[in-house]
């Protein structure tokens, strides 16, 4: 039984399982996601997804439906409300439906899977997402990806690469996606499927065709393992963070695909070196790295960048505070450098 033994634990970081799953299903365009629970569970998530779409200059309302359970459904069971919502949505010219559960329906014991297993004419895919069971945002994302992987059939290899678990709610998701595509193109490789980012339901059938899966982060390893077991596809556990990691990533992808990566690595290295031609303008100041919103990999990438620039990171925490962003690939590191230059010249 999950528990939260520390009163001081504010639990700000784990997130909601439901939102994690939604970050995946809301990116499959010709589908609808039903959130089986009170309407508030849908409202907050719809607001979040909508705001992120706006941030990305896309005027898209996420296709969410709530079963809008009230007290009566809680007392008498919400299965009929779910059935009605599925029938309604299934008639809307879509390819598939996802049904996400919430805390209350898993408390009262609605058999969501059994209702989804009935015949509606299109695939209806249940994803367990009750957050009170202790799962995090990441668990919701992994549950959704594994549920999707379960319906894709093995298919002939096409030599492409899958990007697995791109973080659709992160600020630079498109830039990061483009950077990995660019790095792959240096090796003569291309993306087979974004699993899942800006995807259609039919594209998901290509999941098993890739020669390699590249996970966005190591927290997706359960998904990588599932895909390896199901389709035999090897995986690399993370997008690269920072400069040397990016070169190592190119070698790793090349090795995994049995191709020679030396040209790609040297061309990428020259590209990285160009970043330092104009100097940093930072080297006379003590700096600190703002580690409040960052993971270890990005902090390591930032440290590496500081070292390349010849600037000293003050371990006592005094000096100009430099932001540490997500430093995916060479481009992500360059964006971080750009922000540092703006800080010093501001």
């Amino acid at each position: 039984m999950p528990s939260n033994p520390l009163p001081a634990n504010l639990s700000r970081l784990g997130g909601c399982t439901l939102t994690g799953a939604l970050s995946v299903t809301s990116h499959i365009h010709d589908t609808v996601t039903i959130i089986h629970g009170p309407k508030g569970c849908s409202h907050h998530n719809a607001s979040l997804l909508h705001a992120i779409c706006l941030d990305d200059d896309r005027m898209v309302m996420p296709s969410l439906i709530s079963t809008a359970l009230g007290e009566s459904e809680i007392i008498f069971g919400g299965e009929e409300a779910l059935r009605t919502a599925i029938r309604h949505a299934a008639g809307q010219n879509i390819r598939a439906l996802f049904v996400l559960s919430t805390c209350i329906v898993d408390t009262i014991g609605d058999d969501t899977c059994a209702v989804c297993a009935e015949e509606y004419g299109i695939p209806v895919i249940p994803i367990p997402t009750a957050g009170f069971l202790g799962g995090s945002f990441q668990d919701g994302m992994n549950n959704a990806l594994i549920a999707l992987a379960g319906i894709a059939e093995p298919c002939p290899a096409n030599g492409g690469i899958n990007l697995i678990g791109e973080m659709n709610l992160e600020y630079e998701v498109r830039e990061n996606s483009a950077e990995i595509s660019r790095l792959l193109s240096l090796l003569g490789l291309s993306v087979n499927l974004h699993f899942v980012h800006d995807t259609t339901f039919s594209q998901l059938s290509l999941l098993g065709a890739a020669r390699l899966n590249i996970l966005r982060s190591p927290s997706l390893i359960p998904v990588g393992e599932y895909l390896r077991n199901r389709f035999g596809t090897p995986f690399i556990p993370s997008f690269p963070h920072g400069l040397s990691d990016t070169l190592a990533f190119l070698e790793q992808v090349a090795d995994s695909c049995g191709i020679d990566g030396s040209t790609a690595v040297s061309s990428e290295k020259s590209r990285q070196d160009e970043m330092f031609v104009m100097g940093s303008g930072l080297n006379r100041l003590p700096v600190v790295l703002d580690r409040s919103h960052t993971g270890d990999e990005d902090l390591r990438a930032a440290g590496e960048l500081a070292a390349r620039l010849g600037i000293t990171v003050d371990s006592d925490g005094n000096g100009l505070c430099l932001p540490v962003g997500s430093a995916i690939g060479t481009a992500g590191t360059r964006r971080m450098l750009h922000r540092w230059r703006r800080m010093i010249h501001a």
Partner: protein
Amino acid sequence: MTMKQIALYGKGGIGKSTTSSNLSSALSHRGLSILQIGCDPKRDSTRMLMQGRFIPTVMDLVRVRGESAISLDDVVFTGYNGIRCVEAGGPEPGVGCAGRGIIATFQLLEKFGALKGDVIVYDVLGDVVCGGFAMPMREGYAQEIYLVTSGELMSLYAANNICKAVQRLASRVKSKCRLGGVICNAKGQPREEELVAEFARRVNSTMIQYIPRDHVVQQAEVNQQTVIEYSPDSAQAEHYRSLAQRIMENTRLTIPQPLEIDALESLAREFI
């Protein structure tokens, strides 16, 4: 007099509804205005007060009509000797949340101002299965809890569990919930009265009434009546009247001390 609110709890099938209905009947003959509320999705608490009729439940009405379309008259039915009867109702077995149904019923009855009269008798489902079924014990509702049990171990076990719930609720700041006593609804096993009396003593309470097993209960039931109505001169009817009197005069309200499971089992062994 101030309104007295009592709740009967006990293992399923132990005779809570029979006891409640006969208690309500006996109380009504003392000239008191009685409201009996069945708090069990089985909805059969008040049948014997309603000539065998299953009255519509609060939850059924909410489900069919919606809360706003219900009035007090839709949920309160007048039965034997003017006793007002309410059934909370709830979901079919195996779906939804019956406990939430009890909470919703109480809120609705509260809104209607239905909780009035001289005595309210809450007849509550077998065991305290979740927070919802403890609702009748919460502040503002029943302040006296009566446990209905036989001498069978499983029945004592359920009664002991309810002691735990009463003890926990009694510790809350504003709570006035107390254990009023133990009603022995006998199965007819040897030394049963002694055993239940001793159980009551050990949980820091008293056996307030011993009700022997009597065939007249079944006879009354097949005639869709309480014993008080069907056979008012019987010895059994007298037991129920005695229970009613003792409850009205009861001043010994305690915070129970539930037994550990092995203490309970060794108690049962002593009386085999």
